[in-house]
């Protein structure tokens, strides 16, 4: 192994330099304000969790977890998502007080990346979890809040695809009557391999109508017209219930007036395996991966010993910033340049200006070797410099 150069960072780790930090903070602030105004309370959880608890419950692949050992030899993980830790806190503490519970977070999560660059291993997620609410209103609220959070962040061109895991499950089991075949179909859908799905379905030599039913899943994309197709295909109780939920959701999204951002894709399966019902992904045109996703996970809390339905979403901050486009460099910092005779005046001037809300840099002129170059980075510079001193 070659010796590391001093500037190197572990793979997938990024620095946030001042310009980006400023932009990030501004966007984050606006988003969290909006989330707060919907009554969601912020929560923080530790970066390290036990592998056996949160590590196992999170839907992130084992090889993507950063693992380490504590002093007792127990395996720890750097949290790979926020939903599992929040489920842990909710199940063990908070739920005893109040149901439903509305929580939000802004935190870094960690996923080891195996491929080449372009994928950070540490990234910030902003999201919400609404726990203890089994109604479709909970799902509608998640999507509506997602829309307004993105809007206040400054993003206006985006699209949310909505699916239903329960519906896919019913369709597959109903048509195939075999869990192992259904599993194989799910795998193809999850891999987004439609060619493989079609080939597999036709290799099963099913009756014509069953095959049609399975293939029609790939065509269930669009607006409310998909419900009609869906209904003709699945007519058992659980399937009908799933479609009913989507119809109900569609009505509610109109009530929130966010329907223009939403379309349905009933073949959608998320990489988060804990989803149980309605689920969604958000896309912005200029970014190659979804900027966020969410859905209903009614069984996750059960893993922490408390049965409660829940729904939520998470947005990936970096991708959102990428979607927002160019960052303007904003610099409204004022510089007061002083020489030591006027230091006292400079200090009190700075104090005054700071109290009135300005950002002020106080700089001793003796500490700057190239004054010309230094002042260029400020829009306003006040000199409190003794001229005689200067000319000496």
């Amino acid at each position: 192994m070659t010796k590391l150069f001093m500037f190197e960072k572990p793979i997938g780790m990024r620095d946030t330099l001042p310009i980006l930090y400023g932009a990030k903070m501004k966007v984050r602030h606006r988003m969290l304000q909006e989330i707060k105004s919907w009554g969601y309370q912020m929560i923080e959880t530790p970066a390290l969790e036990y592998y056996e608890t949160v590590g196992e419950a999170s839907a992130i692949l084992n090889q993507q977890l950063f693992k380490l050992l504590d002093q007792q030899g127990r395996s720890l993980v750097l949290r790979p998502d926020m939903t599992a830790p929040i489920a842990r806190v909710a199940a063990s503490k908070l739920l005893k007080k109040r149901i439903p519970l509305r929580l939000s977070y802004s935190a870094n999560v960690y996923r080891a990346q195996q491929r080449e660059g372009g994928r950070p291993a540490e990234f910030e997620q902003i999201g919400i979890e609404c726990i203890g609410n089994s109604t479709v209103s909970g799902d509608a609220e998640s999507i509506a809040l997602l829309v307004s959070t993105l809007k206040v962040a400054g993003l206006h061109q985006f699209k949310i695809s909505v699916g239903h895991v329960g519906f896919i499950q019913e369709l597959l089991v109903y048509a195939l009557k075999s869990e192992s075949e259904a599993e194989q179909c799910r795998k193809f859908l999850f891999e987004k391999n439609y060619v493989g799905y079609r080939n597999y379905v036709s290799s099963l030599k099913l009756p014509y109508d069953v095959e049609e039913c399975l293939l029609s899943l790939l065509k269930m994309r669009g607006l409310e017209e998909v419900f009609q197709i869906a209904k003709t295909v699945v007519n058992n109780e659980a399937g009908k219930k799933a479609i009913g939920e989507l119809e109900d959701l569609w009505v509610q999204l109109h009530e929130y007036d966010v329907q223009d951002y939403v379309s349905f894709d009933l073949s959608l399966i998320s990489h988060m395996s804990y989803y149980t019902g309605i689920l969604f992904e958000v896309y912005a045109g200029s970014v190659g991966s979804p900027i966020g996703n969410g859905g209903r996970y009614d069984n996750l809390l059960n893993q922490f010993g408390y049965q409660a339905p829940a729904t939520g979403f998470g947005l990936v901050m970096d991708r959102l910033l990428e979607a927002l486009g160019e960052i303007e460099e904003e610099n409204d910092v004022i510089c007061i340049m002083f020489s030591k005779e006027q230091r006292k005046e400079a200090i009190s001037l700075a104090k005054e200006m700071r109290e009135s809300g300005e950002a002020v840099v106080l700089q001793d002129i003796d500490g700057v070797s190239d004054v010309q170059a230094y002042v260029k980075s400020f829009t306003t510079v006040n000199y409190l410099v003794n001229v005689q001193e200067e000319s000496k």
Partner: protein
Amino acid sequence: MTECLTIAMPKGRIFDDAVELLRAAHFQLPPEFDDNRKLILEVKEENIRFILAKPMDVATYVEQGVADIGIAGKDVMLEEERDVYELLDLKISPCYLATAGLPGTKLSDIAPRVASKYPNIASTFYREQGEQVEIIKLNGSIELAPMIGLAERIVDIVSTGQTLKENGLVEYEKIADITSRLIANPVSYRIKEKRISELVSRLAEVI
């Protein structure tokens, strides 16, 4: 005006086959793409832009979202496992993946070695056979490996079998049939849904 659609294509034979297919689906493409050193070809009439890439890189461009859709061999899809939609089997450039070696040879008992341009596929295939082999990654002329004793087996694309024959190699096991696939970036697939669905259905008709 519709948005521009960027299509990543491999250079060479697949490109010619794919262009023919697009023409059959009534896309107005110029009669000849003359300057074949260009890496980006614009077709204003259709508002399409082709980017010409190495076959192995097509899926990468599409996954990263710099190309909306692409045409990639199934071999690339199996090897690279990219997060893209595989929408359509274009059934062009058919061939298959197979193992080959010198006639009458076996994998070594002590340290079986397999050379391939497709380390991922080779490793998965032999694992599924219950064989633990060492994979040696080569970038071309894979047939050399058994001939000069670098490996007992190779995993490579076979289309006519001519190259194997000329180098005195025989095919052992067939791994998978390969054709070119139409792939799409997951975000483009939603955002440019109309254009992509239209392209898919027009192509599906002529396959």
